[in-house]
């Protein structure tokens, strides 16, 4: 039981870190949560992804959105147009993930992400 409580506390603390990244960078935090659950708490890949999806279902970013919108940093129209696509795409992706081994897919994604990050970090005009 103590071990369970320690694990819970650890997971909560990791999620807090992901949350800070989420508010800072306007992301859901799942991109950080998935590898952390796997690396620190020995979740299998599929389980880490399913659990991360639970964490992004409630509007965890609501306080952050309010803070951004107070400064006028939300494009509501663009956002509203994006939502249906992300929703239906999510269903397709979830069904696809069952069929393929996401290992290679994730590595390709990691490379794209790294290059994207490098471009953002270097070309900051």
């Amino acid at each position, binding site marked *: 039981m103590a071990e369970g409580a320690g694990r819970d506390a650890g997971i*909560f603390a990791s999620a807090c870190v992901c949350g800070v990244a989420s508010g800072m960078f306007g992301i859901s935090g799942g991109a*950080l949560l998935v590898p952390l659950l796997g690396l620190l708490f020995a979740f299998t890949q599929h389980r880490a992804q399913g659990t*991360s999806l639970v964490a992004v*279902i*409630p509007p965890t970013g609501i306080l952050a959105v309010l803070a951004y919108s107070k400064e006028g940093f*939300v*494009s509501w129209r663009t956002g509203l147009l994006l939502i249906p696509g992300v929703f239906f795409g999510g269903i397709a992706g979830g069904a696809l*993930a069952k069929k393929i081994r996401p290992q290679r897919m994730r590595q390709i994604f990691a490379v794209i992400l790294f290059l994207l990050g490098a471009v953002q*970090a270097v070309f*900051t005009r």
Partner: protein
Amino acid sequence: MVCARRVTRTAVWLIILLQMTLVILLLGLGVGVLVGLLGIGGGVVLVPALVYLLHLDQHMAQGTSLFVLLPPVGVGALREYWKQGQVDLRAGVLCALGMLLGAYAGSFVALPLASRTLKALFGCFLMLAAILLWAKPRLDGSVSRRSEEQHHG
């Protein structure tokens, strides 16, 4: 003459608007597939896409991305994982709580920063996230093999 020109201008404007709308809709769809496939929220792709494809300012892209992620866009994907029993509900709820608090704190770090500083920081963060994503599979393979052995043994 004038009337014709106005009609043409309106038509061009409409086409551009339609094009933009279509681009945004397709972008959403592409991001959504990644959400389901990788169990992420989609912001890591959404923010750069908004910056480079739609030319939003870094702060604006982040605020908009956070807004897009407010409704449960991942619920369809979650259902697929749930059917396979690949969900740790207790851990997920704990993570949601932690992220609610953390995100609020994080927004206060980001908002006073200059856009270009934030953009550079975001780039560094993406690289870190990429390394973590890459690092995972090796360990995953060994863990699942170990649990398989336990099941058999």
